């Protein structure tokens, strides 16, 4: 990758969709209204685990204004499959059962029935009149309960995939066991001068997007369905709804509205199948919007975890052996990110001997969904805490020890393949030189560091670049844009064709208007969709070269392209170059409109690494801690729009800090969620955080024409460890359970 100089890439234009967002004109899921629209509400289970004995909807159906009532009888059981982001092809049976319970309710908030009525108020009151007879069952709400001998079993037919030969067969709550080994850990730990081992626990937390799930579905008389929805992947919504409802996908069109945050939580369907089914019964379009309480109880969370971590090192800081046993809550159905955690936990370090066991465990809590680098934050919290403890006990600079063991190009990743060019060493060296690392600390303050890794997905994307006669262009893709990828795509088209960025209109098209696109997730949109956009722009360029060849009457091979103009290559008769504008103006006469198109399905992008430095001030009399300084340093390959790369790093750091300090699902013993509101689910507010300094390191990723790596998910991986290590530095006490809430911190400090 020669150090290429760019013209548009790396600049910071105002994002094209910004004006609508700062004036309130942007349309999110709940902003859509359609003629004849009525409103849907969901009846949800009050019990964490119960058999659905009977559902009597007569009282609800009798209410004035009620147009349709939906129960399990209205939705066929399905065993269809759909491609679902990084999870690859997954079965829809569980997602369908989660959308509307069939035989059992598996968590408080599990959908049992739905009503559509002429007003939301009537729909809600009608839902309350549905009489459901539950046979309440004992619940397994925590990992310990689910793993205990003769624990209540959520799925009778479930057997552990990848079961160790020694494990018993028969009903279990362990859906999957993943094992990864290398070398000989007994020999490795034998050589170690120091071994640190601890058990780490992280709570179930939520992505916390400010926009609740919302959609409108219109089931037409001719079986044609249109769904407007806030989602990270409207092609996935189309296929999932078709599979769950037993409809022909060719009859479904999905329009992606602006999305008010997702972070992985909007990569599955909750309301869309219900709205479509209600619309079919009511013969009216149906709008459904979750309340904030429903968002917490019935969507999105990521796994709470219990991770035992043991690492051995030589006196000089060389890591020689590591072993870990990891348990991830899957929620009501198999599918926790135990695999992601297993693959990430040692991804930053060269460890010759390791053993990893990871378990995917179902519990009577909401079905887990992806949350930004799924599985990695909890795993890194354990690894980075133990590595930090080793450095402390060896009296070594924590960055020094990490640099000594940091993986580099040619090392074999714990999950198998060797690393290509990666930037972990550059990132750690940048951290050591950063003024924050040398800055003095105040009283009751501590400093912590941690590394973070994520794979960054590839997957399938499509792009179209339309050239207008006036020389302006439009770029169209199928990936909903949360963090500014439309602006990045415009920059790429500008870089390739020399059109000013503000004369390029980026947009996200519906499932009828653009080629297939995998979900927006896995930090893939700038990488993979960007690759398609670049190729589509190059397609326009090559078509314009052909148009110049036509005008000059020469062969295409004799026409080149330099800084926005078709040029006659040497060997061809000399010609004054034809600018893009001139060629665009002559489009009609040289062959008609020019539309560039490209589709890609690249392998995984180059991995991204980061190091975070956190200064924490602790009030030792109350246990309250405040982040007083925070620096995030990350290898981003090539920053297309630096402001939005910084935004990903700052947003991920804030989510990680919240996860470390105050966020948790608080359950009562009967399996009911106690803090399903933004008042008591304590996400960081503006006054909780300092400015978050960002440093963008650019180690080019050879797999992308501009060197781009995915940047969206790495930022949330280091903060849990960085904050915990800072608290250790400030108090002298190693805390191994998150969140590091004031009651937990004070209880431990006053014990010593």
């Amino acid at each position: 990758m020669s150090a290429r100089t760019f013209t548009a890439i790396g600049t910071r234009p105002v994002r094209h969709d910004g004006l609508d967002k700062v004036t309130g004109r942007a349309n999110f899921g709940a902003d859509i209204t359609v003629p004849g629209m009525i409103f849907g509400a969901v009846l949800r289970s009050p019990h964490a685990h119960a058999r659905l004995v009977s559902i009597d909807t007569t009282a609800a159906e009798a209410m004035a204004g009620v147009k349709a009532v939906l129960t399990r009888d209205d939705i066929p059981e399905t065993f269809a499959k759909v491609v679902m982001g990084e999870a690859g092809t997954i079965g829809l049976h569980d997602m369908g059962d989660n959308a509307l319970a069939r035989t059992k309710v598996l968590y408080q908030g599990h959908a049992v029935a739905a009503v559509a009525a002429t007003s939301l108020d009537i729909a809600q009151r009608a839902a309350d009149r549905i009489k459901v007879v539950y046979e309440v069952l004992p619940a397994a709400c925590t990992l310990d309960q689910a793993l205990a001998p003769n624990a209540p079993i959520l799925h009778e037919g479930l057997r552990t995939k990848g079961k160790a030969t020694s494990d018993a067969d028969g009903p279990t709550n362990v859906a999957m066991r993943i094992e990864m080994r290398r070398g000989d850990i007994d020999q490795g730990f034998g050589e170690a001068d120091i071994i640190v081992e601890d058990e780490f626990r992280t709570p179930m937390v939520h992505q916390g997007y400010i926009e609740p799930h919302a959609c409108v579905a219109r089931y037409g008389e001719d079986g044609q369905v249109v769904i407007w929805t806030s989602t990270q992947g409207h092609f996935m919504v189309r296929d999932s709804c078709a599979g769950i409802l037993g409809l022909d996908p060719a009859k479904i069109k999905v329009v992606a509205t602006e999305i008010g945050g997702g972070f992985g939580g909007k990569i599955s369907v909750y309301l869309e199948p219900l709205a479509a089914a209600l619309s079919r019964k009511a013969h009216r379009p149906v709008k459904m919007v979750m309340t904030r309480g429903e968002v917490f109880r019935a969507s999105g969370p990521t796994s709470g975890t219990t991770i035992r971590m043991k690492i051995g090192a030589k006196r000089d800081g060389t890591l020689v052996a590591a072993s870990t046993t990891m348990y991830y809550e899957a929620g009501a159905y198999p599918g926790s990110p135990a695999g992601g955690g297993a693959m990430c936990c040692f991804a930053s370090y060269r460890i010759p001997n390791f053993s990893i066991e990871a378990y995917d465990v179902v519990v009577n809590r909401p079905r887990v969904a992806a949350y930004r680098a799924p599985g990695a934050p909890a795993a890194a919290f354990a690894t980075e805490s133990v590595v930090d403890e080793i450095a402390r006990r060896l009296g070594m600079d924590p960055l020094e020890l990490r640099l000594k063991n940091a993986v580099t190009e040619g090392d074999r990743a714990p999950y198998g393949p060797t690393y290509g060019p990666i930037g972990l060493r550059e990132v750690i060296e940048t951290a050591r030189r950063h003024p924050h690392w040398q800055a003095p600390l105040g009283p009751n303050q501590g400093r912590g560091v941690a590394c973070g890794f994520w794979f960054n997905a590839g997957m399938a994307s499509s792009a179209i670049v339309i050239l207008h006669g006036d020389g302006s262009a439009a770029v169209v893709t199928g990936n909903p844009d949360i963090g500014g990828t439309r602006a990045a795509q415009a920059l790429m088209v500008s870089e390739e064709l020399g059109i000013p960025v503000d004369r390029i209109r980026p947009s996200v098209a519906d499932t009828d208007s653009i080629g297939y696109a995998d979900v927006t997730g896995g930090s893939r949109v700038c990488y993979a969709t960007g690759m398609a956009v670049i190729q589509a722009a190059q397609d326009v360029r090559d078509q314009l070269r052909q148009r110049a060849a036509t005008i000059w009457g020469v062969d295409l091979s004799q026409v080149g392209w330099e800084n926005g103009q078709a040029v006659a290559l040497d060997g061809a008769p000399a010609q004054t170059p034809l600018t893009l504008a001139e060629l665009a103006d002559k489009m009609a006469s040289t062959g008609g409109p020019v539309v560039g198109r490209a589709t890609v399905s690249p392998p995984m992008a180059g991995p991204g690494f980061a190091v975070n430095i956190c200064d924490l001030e602790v009030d030792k009399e109350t246990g309250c801690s405040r982040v007083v300084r925070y620096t995030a340093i990350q290898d981003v390959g090539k920053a297309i729009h630096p402001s939005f790369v910084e935004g990903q790093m700052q947003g991920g750091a804030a989510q990680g800090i919240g996860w470390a300090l105050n966020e948790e699902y608080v359950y009562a013993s009967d399996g009911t969620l106690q803090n399903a509101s933004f008042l008591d689910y304590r996400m960081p507010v503006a006054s909780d955080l300092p400015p978050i300094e960002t440093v963008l390191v650019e180690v080019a990723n050879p797999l992308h024409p501009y060197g781009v790596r995915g940047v969206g998910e790495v930022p949330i991986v280091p903060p849990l460890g960085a904050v915990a290590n800072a608290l250790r530095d400030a108090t002298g006490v190693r805390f191994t359970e998150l969140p590091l809430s004031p009651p937990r911190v004070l209880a431990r400090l006053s014990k010593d």
Partner: protein
Amino acid sequence: MPKIHVRTTVNGEPAEFLCEPGDTLLEALRTALNLTGTKEGCATGDCGACSVLLDGRLVPSCLVLAAEIDDRSVQTIEGIAEGERLHPVQQKFLEHAALQCGVCTPGFIVAAVALLRRQPRPSERDVRYWLAGNLCRCTGYDKIVRAVMDAADQMIDAHDTGKAAV
């Protein structure tokens, strides 16, 4: 129960609508008046996405009854810009990339405009504590605070040099 007939002023223009006694101002704005720029994030006054100015005072419109605004005046995000001219806070949010998904942006802009009207020279701490009632999950608040501080500076400069201050 007959609906309530409300006559009010929204963004400087007379407006009237019918509402139920229990309807909130947020619901009236988004349905009766079709002004969907004000967003609902929680409906319990904890996220700030529904912030509006009621007789010039910053309030959560999800905790105001629609019936209350009879002959009072409401300013929403749709009324912050003046025709083609964006308010400096709106302009700085764009320049600083102080928004990503944008669902919290209307609430932040209305809250920031309210702050700068009562405190033209806020410190960073003032800005962060005033905006603590507006939740954002995408940005980590950094660029939002910078955008508001920059808007304050620009408005002071404009005021000092006699240009039309907003």
